[in-house]
């Protein structure tokens, strides 16, 4: 599926104008690397809370989101890190299957 950039207002409130969000390969991608703390955390959690994002989000940042992991756990989401090198970080975030 070709990547398709979505206008921010389509997925997240107009508050995070520096966030990039797009659909690609059946997942919602969010890039928060242009934001300063704590906005990457807040923008990602706000996206996760939306009922229309589905069960898979690909998160992009310029560093590992150290505060996000605890919140994801609490909300019942899991993750797999895909890229982690200086200046580039990405991971897949998905709902934990209910046991």
């Amino acid at each position, binding site marked *: 599926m070709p990547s398709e950039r979505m206008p921010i207002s389509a997925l997240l409130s107009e*508050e*995070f104008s520096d966030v990039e969000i797009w659909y690609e390969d059946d997942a919602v991608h969010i890039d928060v690397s242009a934001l*300063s*703390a*704590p*906005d990457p*955390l*807040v923008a990602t*959690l*706000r996206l996760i*809370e939306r009922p229309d994002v589905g069960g898979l989000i690909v998160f992009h940042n*310029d*560093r*590992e989101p*150290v*505060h996000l*992991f*605890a*919140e994801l*756990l*609490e909300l019942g989401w*899991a*993750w*797999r*890190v895909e890229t*982690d*090198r200086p200046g580039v*970080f990405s*991971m897949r975030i998905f709902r*934990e*299957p209910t046991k």
Partner: protein
Amino acid sequence: MSFDPTFLAGAQSRLLPLSVPFRFFIAGALFHVISWVLVGLNADTVINFSGGLGFGLAAIHALTLGVFVMTAIGASLQLLPVATKRSARAGGPIVIISLLYMCGVPILVWAMAVHDIEMALWGGVAAAIGLAVYTALIGVNLFHARGLKSVVAFCWAAISALVLLVVLGLLLLLDFDLGFLTDHAALAGVHLIAAVFGFMGLLAVGFSFILIPMFTLSRGMPTWRGSLTLAVSVLAIVLAGFESVYSSKVIAAAAFVAGFSAGAIYLWTMVEMLRSGMRKRLGVPFVLIRISWVLLPIALLLGVLAVGGWIDDQGWRLFGFVLLAGWLLSFLLGILLKIAPFLASMHSATGNGRPARLSSLTPEWPQKVLVVCHPLALVLTGGGIVTGHATWAQAGAMVGTLGAIAVLVYLLEIIRRLSAHRRACSEP
């Protein structure tokens, strides 16, 4: 598959060992207990404190250096590198800070209590060297920081105030022995202003702009709002310092106008963050944080009444008490209750083990004890200061001690739960 075994592997450069922040948190919690015990054992002296060495000064420094600065060191050493995208460096400097500051402060506090100037100087110099290393470490981080301009500016202003308060503190100690200062009280006033509003106040306000949106899940504020708050705060602090030296009603009035303005912008921003935050159930920590926000303008109002001569000496003491134990201590306790399990959770994954949930690391009952005891201790001790009845202050100190012990138990219980989690993960 649910969790990545490389959980926070790349973050290690920005995470210090958990023992670093927690050693300062636990030392701070111990000093919290000591502060209330000092008040309880010497309630009459404390509620009639009018400067000079003794248990009153010791209690104040147990609270300021022992609780506030100690906890601020632990939190800022870990939180600042994460926020500013810089590497956190453990090792030598942190060992020096830990040893010198943690040894220096109890010596200083004890020496103040027993009127031993020489011992106080030894303790003061040790603590000052520890703080100098801390300042250098934080300064290097801030110098290379990326983003968060207004918060970085808050931190620069706070550590500038820290340098001033340490230099003045040592001069004041020397003056107890040598008597070379022409106006000891005026410099003590500047020292107090640099400490309470300068270092601790600016740090509390600056970190609020990151931590409160993080906890409430609201957007960070625009940079201009932080810069404006900082500019007006610094103006108020400088004016208050001049007022302490020159005793001018005009300067005092200008300082209070600036102080109220800074407080209003700050509180307005905080209320906006609470309103726009996604998370509405904020728990016990935010009860304490809200109390601190209510007590900040009340403290400033008491300051106006005291400087204007509308209330007597007990009013001055109440002003100091509401400022320190009401605004700053309530705020710090609320923040500590939030960040301690958060930091622990970041260190909870080992090997292929599942990281611990925040809720499983957060003990509930010590928070409940604290949220009852702390406000009650404030009311009782404040009542003791107003009425001059030491028994009220003693009762307040007893309740406060109970709350302080609850904080200590809270931190130790987090460590116990984290260890249990790690053990469970390492079992085959």
